[in-house]
């Protein structure tokens, strides 16, 4: 395997409402920031992650290329997934050995539509989508199956929102309160907020990484695993695919200082903590995590970026970035990074 590292990360100051910027306008500042941090204007490979259903237009991701300057033609790809999977594709591409740098970015404006119902469109069209099963409803089924203590969920949200308020890029959300249910057992504050935002990461291989950055976040393991889509075919109380991805990425081979988990609902944190076998001493989501800012399609990449940034900053020496996709943590990607 080639040594590959995250050498730069940038994100927007995420917003709970539409600030009037188009997607290319949203992505340009983080792209500029990572280009400035690395001094690179051209990359051996470029890959992005986004979802056309967020904008309601086919091939909407193509317009984001306007922020790149794709002329003369560049080597480029796109995943209709969270951009964490674009990072995975870029890592695989760099393994080929013929290019040394990759630009990865993701963006999403979920303020434009109804995210709960847009997420219904990802469900199988025979058995689930016709029921009108929305995102919060199926997440509540998982929360119910996981039987997590209410006080623990409240504490997770309280901690995430407090950390989010301390993070200039996340939303300022108050301490959780109120006893109404959105879909029981989930309360409104258990749900990641609707957020617009974007993020970018630069990967570099070997010596280039050492040139570009003082303390690269070396990717020592990266793996993703998926389980059956249909909710009734799996044990929703645990995440077998996250556990398997963590094993494949070697998450348990050393102490994890920080784990940034793609928790779009508070009950997903204990499920993922268990799957990744994280000890109490691992700090989870110091950025506030998705419960404090959830720019869909960038959220997973931001987990990798935030976890990498702790190493770039010198604050941690071994971290994990986790990303998830599909209903009820169906698909999980684990990235292990070391100084």
């Amino acid at each position: 395997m080639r040594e590959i590292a995250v050498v730069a990360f940038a994100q927007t100051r995420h917003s709970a409402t539409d600030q009037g910027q188009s997607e290319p306008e949203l992505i340009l500042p983080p792209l500029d920031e990572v280009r400035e941090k690395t001094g690179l204007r051209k990359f051996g490979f470029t890959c992005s992650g986004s979802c056309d259903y967020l904008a309601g237009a086919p091939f909407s991701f193509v317009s984001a290329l306007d922020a790149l300057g794709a002329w003369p033609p560049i080597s480029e790809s796109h995943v209709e997934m969270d951009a964490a999977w674009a990072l995975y594709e870029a890592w695989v591409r760099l393994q080929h050995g013929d290019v040394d740098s990759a630009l990865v970015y993701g963006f999403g404006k979920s303020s434009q539509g109804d995210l709960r119902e847009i997420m219904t469109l990802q469900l199988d069209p025979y058995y689930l989508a016709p029921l009108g099963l929305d995102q919060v409803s199926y997440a509540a089924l998982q929360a119910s199956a996981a039987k997590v203590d209410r006080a623990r969920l409240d504490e997770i949200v309280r901690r995430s929102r407090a950390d989010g308020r301390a993070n200039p890029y996340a939303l300022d959300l108050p301490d959780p309160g109120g006893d109404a249910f959105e879909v029981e057992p989930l309360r409104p504050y258990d749900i990641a907020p609707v957020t617009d935002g974007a993020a970018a990461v630069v990967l570099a291989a070997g010596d280039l990484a050492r040139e570009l950055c003082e303390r690269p976040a070396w990717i020592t393991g990266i793996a993703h695993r998926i389980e059956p889509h249909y909710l009734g075919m799996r044990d929703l109380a645990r995440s077998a695919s996250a556990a398997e991805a963590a094993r494949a990425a070697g998450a348990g081979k050393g102490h994890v200082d920080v784990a940034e988990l793609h928790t779009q609902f508070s009950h997903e944190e204990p499920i993922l903590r268990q799957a990744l076998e994280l000890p109490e001493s691992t700090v989870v989501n110091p950025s506030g995590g998705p419960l404090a800012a959830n720019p869909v399609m960038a959220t997973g990449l931001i987990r990798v970026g935030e976890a990498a940034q702790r190493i770039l900053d010198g604050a941690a020496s071994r971290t994990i970035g986790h990303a998830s996709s599909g209903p009820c943590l169906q698909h999980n990607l684990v990235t292990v990074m070391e100084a």
Partner: protein
Amino acid sequence: MTLEARHVLEFPGGYTRTTGPVIGRFLTELRDGRLVGVRTAGGRTLVPPLEYDPGTGDAVTGEFVEVGPAGTVESWSWVHAPRAGHPLDRPFAWALIRLDGADTSLVHAVDAGDVKAMRPGLRVRPRWRAERTGQITDIESFVPEVTKIVSPVRTEYVLKPGLALARFLEGVAAGVFVGCRCGSCHKVYVPYRLSCPECGIAITEEVEVPDTGTITTFAINNLPDPRAPEVPFVSAYVLLDGSDVPMITLVGGVAAHEVRQGMRVRAVWVPEEERTASMANIKWFAPTGEPDAEL
């Protein structure tokens, strides 16, 4: 100026999707009002049927078996406010339902009426649509199995109070409490009675007691009662002065949390013109303001 446009993404008439033989069989049986699962090579029954065994990736066998129609709720979530796209327009549960004979669970709605009716292990059955077209929504929802019925009971009586109670209520109509003293044990009972429950002998001596007394014990009732003047209300045992056995009454004119044992109280009578031969003559007992009595 804020520029905004309304945009709708829609595929007119919807996508046409082929079902393939496995899903197609399930939907065809569904249209006929039957639920089937498909057998895997390992002998598990997948409901709803999938083309491939999620455990092994192997193609499933061609064997379909009827399952359900009853099933057991494994876990559930409760929708308090249904959305436009939801299958029911009233609060309902989403549930993972293990149909009898299946090795996997079906996701569907349960029309349980109230969240309190939901629990893991709840037995449910499909409520079929009259017009079925071969869609998962041919089952409108699942409904709980019948485990109880409501049996109305009503019959009418004409009751007289008995001689002792009639005498007592006669006194209440006149604004006094009539009691009696046992000739053997000398206890004074209120309300008036014709025999001593302790000695088992007839009582002949009638006594009148004042409408003041002391609370010996009490309960705060938070459940609405059509006969209660307000909620919460306090019912208390009041030992009328000069009597030996307390009488149960309402206590009012004081905050429920201030009521205490030993509190001195007096009957609050309704105005004379409203009085009848009934305990309704006494609105309640209210504190007199005297120091508490030793019990």
